[in-house]
């Protein structure tokens, strides 16, 4: 992934002053595959604080929920949420975060798979990697068809 041309962007009327900024107003957040401008469901559900990072071609909303789990939502320039990621002591509410993709995720989780501490769901329009145990979960989910052209999921450590 190339981050060289990082630029601050305007998100829902909130001016982001740097690559990593605390912001005074709350951007709208949304569910995977939905428009960022819809609702701030996640923030309300998680009673969370939000931090926004803008890099070339996409914006990241970083939310920490009340139990200390970090959720990151990746929003393309089009306004669509193309990916979500999480890490923390407990799993976030994936039903709400994955939205219309949750059923896909769930049928993947119900299919035969390796172990109970690692789960990969690989479908045409949804990829989920989830690992860990109570006190240390981490994972991500994304919609391949919504990925921005300059975003490589393999490149980032």
């Amino acid at each position, binding site marked *: 992934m190339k981050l060289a041309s990082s630029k601050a962007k305007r998100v829902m009327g909130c001016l982001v002053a740097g690559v990593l900024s605390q912001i005074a107003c709350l951007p709208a957040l949304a569910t995977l595959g939905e428009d960022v401008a819809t609702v701030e469901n996640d923030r309300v559900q998680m009673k969370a604080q939000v931090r926004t990072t803008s890099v070339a071609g996409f914006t990241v909303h970083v939310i920490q929920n009340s139990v200390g789990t970090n959720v990151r939502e990746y929003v393309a320039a089009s306004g669509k949420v193309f990916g979500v990621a999480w890490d923390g*002591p407990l*799993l976030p509410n*994936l039903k709400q975060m994955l939205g219309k993709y949750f059923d896909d995720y769930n049928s993947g*989780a119900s299919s035969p798979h390796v172990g109970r501490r690692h789960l990969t769901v690989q479908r045409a329009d949804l990829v989920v990697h989830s690992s860990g145990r109570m006190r*240390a979960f*981490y994972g991500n989910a994304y919609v391949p068809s919504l990925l921005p052209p300059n975003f490589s999921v393999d490149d*980032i450590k």
Partner: protein
Amino acid sequence: MRANLLAALIGILCVAGCGGNGTLGGGSGGGGGTPTGSNVQAITIDSGPAVIANSTSPAVNTAYTTVTVCSPGSTTNCQTVDHIQVDTGSSGLRILASVLTITLPLQTDTSGNVIAECTQFVDGSSWGPIRQADVKIGGETASKQEVQVIGDAAYPTVPPTCLGTPAVTLEDTVTAFGANGILGVGPFIQDCGAGCTVQGGAVYFTCPPSSTTCADSGMPLTLQVANPVASFATDNNGVIIQLPSVGATGSAAVAGYMIFGIGTQSNNGLGSATVIALDSVHGVFTTKYKLGTLSSSFIDSGSNAYYFPDGTINVCGSNGATTHAPGFFCPTATQSLSATLTSTVGSGSASVNFSVANADSLFSGNTIVAALSNLAADSTQVGSGSDSGFNGNTSFDWGLPFFYGRSVYTAIETRNTSGGVGPYFAF
């Protein structure tokens, strides 16, 4: 004869302090003398309870033990349950309701509400109330423990937030769970800790008296499900899991031991084991593997394979190939690999050699192999600490194969041991 001689030589060399080197683990760990004492409990790795062993997917690399639960204070209202999975990746005892034949009293909070739990696993949730029991393992007893009873008919209503986190999939039967229960003997005392003391995590719930509708609730540490070892009268600072070596083609069954306490008896000394101190929040350490540093690594008897990211090893079933082992690694030839485990909060560091065989070949024979020392799976691209992207190869999960041929020590947080204060793993 020749092999024995070589083993003896390695033993002599090891006196000089090469304890942490995984290649020699068999010399100092499992396969030695038979430990005896009130702090010793047998472990078996077999195909699981009958319903699983006789199914099309018998258990693989699942360590089981036997636990006795009694109604608190009773010596008659007791039940001994076999095929309880031994898990260093969690804390506390959970039993499937379908195998329980005795009734244990419900645990209530200070307001008289029944406590229930939605235990989170990556692939599903286990729902059920917390009940009280005296837990007896080997010759040790943990009195009045909070024990989760999964799939309990008295509390059939699964809260919606439990169904949504992490999945609709409920692991509330022996078949779905893979065991008659699970005994969490991990490095933490409580199963959840601080994250569950506040409301909102959808793990702990309270159910008003005479209602089976339960609400998300914060739970004080004292009422959370906890590692029973920490409540033993003695030998309560940790546990050793000791398993014999397993050959390249696996074994139908393996017998080993769980020994309670570290440095508390003549049979549980740390010896020359390397201590890998764990961070006190997540219980993790760093693994350096090939060119990458995997900073959220852990040792987990509850994982049935080594799990690590490596895009260079072929995954079974990739490119549409027929497979018996989807998701596991299927290298064309067995890979001999090594990695270095290093504490992020202490000085401990040890290098470990391990093998990854073709999982399809391992599973394709006609004989049942419950124990496989060279089974591994891809955990590519899970996790991230970065704002700039959502992938990060941050974890090496040293699952049950790591335990074969070793003594693996799990020291409980805040407890003093002969190797320092927990939490740590040592081997």
